């Protein structure tokens, strides 16, 4: 048997006080709009920074140039085939 309904009934003064305290609230969403936009701005800057780092990595700036592939026989065409002696 649950005691919850009894407890709720007994605590009606607390519940009433809770409802009374909710009156008088002045809603003000505008400052939160600023927080949301600044959050978006920070997110965009981070995204831009990450993209820039990825881009630098891709074009090889600031690092050593990619090593030439010297392994023979990996190309699909016949350019690496040894010349015939005849």
């Amino acid at each position, binding site marked *: 048997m649950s005691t919850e309904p009894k*407890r709720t009934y*007994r*605590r009606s*003064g*607390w*519940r*009433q*006080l*809770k*409802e*009374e*305290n*909710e009156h*008088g*609230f*002045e*809603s*003000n*969403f505008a*400052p*939160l*709009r600023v*927080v*949301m936009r600044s*959050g*978006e701005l920070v997110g965009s800057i981070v995204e831009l920074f990450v993209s820039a780092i990825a881009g630098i990595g891709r074009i090889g700036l600031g690092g050593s140039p990619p090593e030439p592939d010297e392994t023979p026989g990996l190309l699909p065409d016949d350019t690496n085939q040894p010349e015939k002696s005849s």
Partner: protein
Amino acid sequence: MLLSVHLALQALGFSDTSDAELVDLYLASRGERYFAELYRRYSTRVYGKCLTMLNDSHEAHDAVQEIFERVILRIGNFRRTASFSTWLFAITNNHCIDRLRKRSRSKLSSAPVEEFEISSESEETTDWLEEQSPAAIRHILGELSEIDRAALVLMYMDDLSVREIATTLNLGESATKMRLKRARARALKIYETWSGRSSMSAA
């Protein structure tokens, strides 16, 4: 999928949209209207909670802003293990308790915890606090120390268990039980003085 839901909701409004769906839509699009709807649903209740805990309407208004700012910054961490409202009110409780701790550091240090002797009578009269009028509760909460007030609000208004109160107050369970016991004993003293004064002024 989300885009089609988004477009449908724009036409229909949010009456049938759950809190979790609004969170998903906000995270996917960062559309202000989704967060604004969550704010519309809960800001009044968050304010009521803050006012009860902090006992100061200006501070409660500031706290509501700070709590929703915190929600904006942490909404990506919201896990579906609990409802959005449970998560929001946990943040509300923690924020109010942080504020109370900051506010009460100097006050508490000058008021020793063993200020009142706990009699066996206070054990027997545990439930008297459940049956009080809003006016009596308001007076008692206004006179209690910050942390005692928080403990009683969590117990009687939020119906939290001792374990949940302990987690919220960052105390052990036995320390929380002791805190509640002392808070009730103090509340009883405050109530007796207040009701004596009230009956004298009525006579």
